């Protein structure tokens, strides 16, 4: 009985900082500035500029997620196969940047990529033409990958480390070569890690506005930037809430689809 009350602080927290704000978003999203119920804030997603921002955000975060997966999976495999001592060191190297402030790390990239930034200065010294990455979709993808790659690597690493080495040995014993062992045993068994990796990269990438603000300048607006501007600059909380709800529903639907397809495959 009394153990129930141990959850009280968390419940209070969840109520104050999750449920009530969520309720407020829903309230603002479904009303206009006079408090009358309307769907216009939600339907506003169909306006060309909002649609463009949403598609761009989806496009860039999808590309980032795929690239994170392609880079992160081999990396996780190397981590899982190196000996305990070495593996722990490499994991540390990967986690280390995560101990630094997210904003600071992204601003560092700004300095690196600027027209007169570190990279272009270096290229100049070498007699090479400068490159312009800053304020492009490419710079945003770079920032997303840099910031979110560890979130892809760690869950995959965890699921790979859980695979019983004898299961891999059994596959080899039954005649499977390296490729067959990977595609028939290791990859299917690591799917849970891949899914949580995708979730942990795709969602923050889709909703980010900091990375696009810093590395995309004001030229590239993602759906996150549009929502941020509605709250902080235009002061139209109703529209901002409505667009947030659309984004939430999109994420919810895509996650549910992912989990269902995964279950059907298994």
């Amino acid at each position, binding site marked *: 009985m009394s153990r129930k009350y141990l959850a009280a602080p968390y419940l209070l927290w969840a109520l104050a900082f999750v449920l009530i704000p969520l309720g407020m978003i829903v309230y603002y999203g479904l009303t206009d500035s006079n408090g009358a119920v309307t769907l216009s804030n939600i339907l506003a997603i169909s306006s060309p500029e909002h649609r463009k921002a949403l598609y761009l955000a989806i496009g860039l975060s999808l590309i980032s997620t795929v690239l994170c997966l392609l880079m992160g999976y081999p990396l996780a495999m190397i981590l899982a196969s190196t000996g305990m001592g070495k593996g722990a060191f490499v994991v540390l190297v990967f986690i280390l940047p995560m101990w630094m402030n997210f904003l600071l790390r992204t601003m560092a990239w700004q300095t690196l990529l600027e027209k007169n930034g570190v990279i272009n200065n270096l290229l100049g010294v070498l007699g090479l033409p400068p490159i312009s990455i800053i304020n492009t979709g490419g710079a945003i993808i770079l920032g997303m990958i840099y910031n979110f790659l560890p979130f892809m690597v760690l869950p995959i690493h965890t699921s790979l480390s859980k695979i*019983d080495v004898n299961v891999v040995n059994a596959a080899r014993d039954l005649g499977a070569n390296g490729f067959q062992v990977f595609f028939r045993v290791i990859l299917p068994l690591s799917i849970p890690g891949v899914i949580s990796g995708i979730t942990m990269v795709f969602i923050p990438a889709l909703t980010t506005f900091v990375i696009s603000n810093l590395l995309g300048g004001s030229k590239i607006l993602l759906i996150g930037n549009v929502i941020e501007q509605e709250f902080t600059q235009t002061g139209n909380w109703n529209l901002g809430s409505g667009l947030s709800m659309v984004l939430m529903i999109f994420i919810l639907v895509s996650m549910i689809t992912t989990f269902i397809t995964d279950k059907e495959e298994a």
Partner: protein
Amino acid sequence: MTKLIDLVNISKSFDDTLVLDDLNLYIRENEFLTLLGPSGCGKTTTLRIIGGFTTPDQGKVIFDGKDITGVAPNKRPLNTVFQKYALFPHMNIEENIAFGLKIKNKPKQYIKDKIQYALKLVNLDGYGKRMPDQLSGGQQQRIAIARAIVNEPKVLLLDEPLGALDLKLRQDMQYELIRLKNELGITFIYVTHDQEEALTMSDTIVVMNQGYIQQIGTPEDIYNEPENAFVADFIGDSNIIPGIMIKDELVEILGHRFACVDTGFGTNKPVDVVIRPEDVELVTPGTGTISGKVSHIIFKGVHYEMEVMAAGFEWLVQSTKMFPVGTEVDIKIDPFNIQIMNKPESEDEEAVKLDE
């Protein structure tokens, strides 16, 4: 019978620890051979070297006349049953059994027939669509065996396959394995630390300790005529008593002379004498060789286990007759049941000598 596998001068160390030292062993076709020993004796390493999962530092593995020392596990004509089953958790039972056959691109109908045949063979007909985690430990182990044998290996390697099962199931599975072995007519190499399991199932037992082979022989040889104190002690309970070989067929134990059947030890030579607890006969005072007194008794089900203090030695005795604590008894031993062993001068020497 011809040699199927020949291990020649195999040595292996892990991190400066010598696990196998110049091991020589051959396995004959259609033999049930058991590698038996305490943990760390090198038995599993030997099996892994045969399976190809461990490469020896020195020596050769000859299979059917060909050197396969450097051949990868997936290219070897043998299959392994692992200790913890190692079924593929993401595949159902049929897919698990079909794994090796699909890799070899066998026709669909052939695979289907093989699955049916294998499930029948291990008495799990109708379990094909289940997932491994829906099966008990014993059932999973039988599937692991089925998954290995559908590939028709010449040799089946079994790494303590019954280790994780409870006693009753283990005994059932022992009979099951003997039956399978006889039906399939293939060579089994079995690793265990359970001496009873080894005695029950094997044609040949290889007793190992600290990387050396201690004795190779039939279960009867190993049990009745252990070559040294380690084997005698490891295989079942035994009384190991220092003695002196007076001359052929006469040994002195604890100041009393016993007739025995061993010869060739010389005269007045110190030896170790092994007497199994069930071979110590308790008789009424005055009719035996040594007199003593029962100091302990436990009921073990099949028999009573007693400790008898006689001539300054605590004898372990197993008998279906009960003698209460304090009973005066005489000890009598049949000459055939006295096993004489050379005394080792040092533990190392004992191991090395027997390895040759």
